[in-house]
Every structure is written in structure tokens, then in C-alpha cells.
């Protein structure tokens, strides 16, 4: 069961232990870890424009319909690998309920318990406190290895950067924006990119209105503002909450309300309902998963959707 990370000390400890265990597990290419492999996968997906050269900036997992199913697949793979690394088959990814934190005052949002020493720690370049603080003298310290730069993907060695509320975005999405997004009835709409309207996907991704998912990346700042954003372990907790919101929406609207269908034109490659989800060349766990494989059984994974149900009322 996926739980609110601040509601359960065990879920919190398991998550921190789990990401550190993946950081300590070499990938097939021993220059980086299995954790870093996920960072690489995300960055490579970001670089894969669908179709190549499109003017909307749509890639295999962002600014298009596949945004939600691709990230669901990514989280499932990550969750399963942590469960294995911890030897805890029941391990479930926790989520950061930024919907709840968004209802706090501005100062309290930056000081919320998620940023405490016993949770994700605080800001810094590099981060100076909490479980992901950088200490070059400690061989087990949290080290960033993968960067997406103008000239491609690079192997680096440095601490994690995080700049909560310092990158011009001082507030999380407000509950009014969340409520409006939840009430959207259409999964997505032409032209299937960041200008789509009406589109639940596009509003949740954050290209319309106040900005939902995108705004959370900007609120955290530092590495979270780049294609290598999964370098910050808050990434997976953030996206688990995005997934929870989609699960709630699916429960309301029917699990298989996805668009576009397979009959859509070829330039929607990677975004039609039976298209394969992008993974890295040589992915050792590639399963040939397609978008529609991500529709089943959404809401049963989460401890609670009731806070979303409370918001999703027409007033």
C-alpha cells in the first residue's frame, strides 16, 4: 500500500534505505549505480522527441498524453527494484502529499515536515542537511552521477542541489487549482501537447493555469528543474502523488478513458493507447510494456484518496 510518507515512519525509513541501497548497487555499466540508471532513463526519455523535431517540444514522456502512463511505469519499475534491494517484497513507494502542503501559508510550505532532517532534508548547493546531505569525506554520502547538459549526458561526481522556494516559485499548487484539474472530464485533447485544452493530463502536467506538476519541480528547484531531476529522491515522492491524482481521476472517470486511440496519426508515436513505453536501449528489465498496460487497478494502490474526493466537488 502506497502511503503518505509523513504519516508513517516505517515507510519513510524504508524509502530512504531503499534509494540508498539502489545507489550502492552497480548498474551493468559499473561507472554508475542502478539508482543512477533511472536518472539516465528519465533524461534519455526527455531527449527523445516524439516525433523527432516536433515544434511542441513533446517527448516520449512529457508534454503529451503518455506523461501519466510513462511515469506510472517508471515508478512501478523503481518500486519493484527497491523492494528487491531491501528484501521486502511488500515495499510500496510512499508519496509526498504536496496538495496538503499547498494549503499551508507560504513560509510554512518551505518548512513543511517533508523537508525535516528525518525526512528529505533541506536546501543547499549541495544539500547540507538530512539523509541526502553531501559530505565528500564520507564514502556513503549521496552523490549525483548523471547530468543532462547542452552537449548530452555526462557522468559527474558532486552533491545534490536543492533550492526550495528560491527559483522564483514560492508556492505549491493551490487547492483551487487542484480542484479544477480533478474536475476535468477529458483525459487529453488535440493537438496532444502543452497547448491541449480541455485536458486533464495537460492541467495535471502543469502547462495550463497555475501549473501543477511543473510548478512542484520549480518549487523544489536545484536538480529538480532539469531533465536529470530524479537525482533528487523527492522526485519519486512527487510523482507518486501525481500518480495518486491520476488514480483518483481514473476511479471517477473510468480506468480506460485514455486518448488518443491507435487510429491517431503516426506523428503521435509513443502516445497512442497501444504504443510501447520508452525505455533505454539495453534495459535489463525491459518488458515490452505498452501504455494500456498502465490502466489497471489504479486506486487500490493508495492508502487514501479521500482528500482529493473532498476537493473534487463543484461549488
Amino acid at each position, binding site marked *: 500500500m502506497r502511503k503518505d510518507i509523513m504519516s508513517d515512519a516505517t515507510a519513510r525509513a524504508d524509502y530512504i534505505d531503499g534509494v540508498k541501497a539502489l545507489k550502492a548497487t552497480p548498474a551493468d555499466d559499473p*561507472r554508475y549505480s542502478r539508482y543512477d540508471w533511472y536518472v*539516465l532513463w528519465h533524461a*534519455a526519455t*526527455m*531527449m*527523445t*522527441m516524439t516525433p*523527432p*523535431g*516536433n*515544434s*511542441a*517540444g513533446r*517527448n516520449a514522456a*512529457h*508534454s503529451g498524453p503518455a506523461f501519466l502512463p510513462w511515469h506510472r511505469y517508471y515508478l512501478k519499475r523503481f518500486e519493484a527494484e527497491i523492494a528487491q534491494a531491501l528484501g521486502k517484497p511488500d515495499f510500496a513507494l510512499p508519496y509526498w502529499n504536496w496538495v496538503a502542503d499547498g494549503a499551508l501559508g507560504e513560509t510554512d510550505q518551505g518548512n513543511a515536515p517533508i523537508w525535516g532532517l528525518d525526512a528529505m532534508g533541506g536546501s543547499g*548547493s*549541495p544539500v547540507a542537511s538530512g539523509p541526502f546531505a553531501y559530505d565528500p569525506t564520507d564514502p556513503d554520502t549521496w552523490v*549525483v552521477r*548523471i*547530468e*543532462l*547538459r*547542452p*552537449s*548530452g*549526458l*555526462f*557522468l*559527474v561526481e*558532486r*552533491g545534490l*542541489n536543492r*533550492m526550495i522556494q528560491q527559483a522564483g516559485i514560492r508556492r505549491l499548487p493551490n487547492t483551487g487549482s487542484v480542484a479544477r484539474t480533478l474536475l476535468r472530464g477529458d483525459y487529453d485533447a488535440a*493537438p496532444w*501537447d*502543452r*497547448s491541449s485544452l480541455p485536458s486533464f493530463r495537460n492541467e495535471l502536467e*502543469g*502547462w495550463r493555469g497555475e501549473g501543477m*506538476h*511543473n510548478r512542484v*519541480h*520549480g518549487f523544489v*528547484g*536545484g*536538480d529538480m*528543474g*532539469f*531533465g536529470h*531531476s530524479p537525482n533528487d529522491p523527492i522526485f519519486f515522492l512527487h510523482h507518486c502523488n501525481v500518480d495518486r491524482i491520476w488514480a483518483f481521476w481514473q476511479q471517477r472517470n473510468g480506468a480506460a478513458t485514455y486518448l488518443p486511440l491507435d487510429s491517431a496519426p503516426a506523428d503521435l508515436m509513443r502516445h497512442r493507447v497501444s504504443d510501447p513505453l520508452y525505455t*533505454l*536501449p539495453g534495459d535489463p528489465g525491459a518488458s515490452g510494456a505498452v501504455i494500456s498496460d498502465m490502466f489497471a487497478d489504479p486506486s487500490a494502490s493508495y492508502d487514501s484518496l479521500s482528500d482529493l474526493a473532498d476537493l473534487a466537488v463543484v461549488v
Partner: protein
Amino acid sequence: MTDDTHLGLPVGDHDMSHGTQVTSVRSFDHGGKAVEIAATYEVKVNGVARQLHFSVGQDGKVTSHLRPYVAYDSLVDMVKDIIDHYPDDFGPAPQGGHGDHHGHGG
């Protein structure tokens, strides 16, 4: 940062395969007429043409996978932001002092 390694993975369709020029075509109907606005952009920093992986949408806003969670109102804003966030990727650091290296995103 001098020993950072380019991973050279066969991913993405921008890298190496495209030049530094970005062509944008915006088309729409207005007053019963079909309009097409075509433009080609090239960004030079310190005289060097750079591939910044951007595209210009039908609404004129600019996006780049280098700053993937933002759509910029102008290409000028995007270029400034990318230079600010990748200080080491645009030619040699200024003379006189190594300073402490903060990495990216700071």
C-alpha cells in the same frame, strides 16, 4: 568538473544528428486565409553557435529539454536561463580564480 565524462549513449534524436539551426513553421487560418510563418534561429554564445535543443510552439512560446518544466515567452529569456543554469558549459570560466565549483542548478 574537468574529469566529467560524456556518456555517449545512443539516445535522443537531437544529439550530433542536427546542426545548430532550428526551423520553426507556425501555420493557422485567419479570416479565411491560410497563414504560414517560417523562421530559422541560431543561437551564438561568445561567437559560437550552440545546439540548445529548443522548439518554438504554435503559440510562439519556447521550450527546451534543458529546462524541461518551463515554457518561455521569448527565446531571449530561455537563453539567459540556460546560461545561468549551465555556467560551465559555455566556454572557459573567467580568468583569475577558480572559485568553488557549485555544479549546476544552483
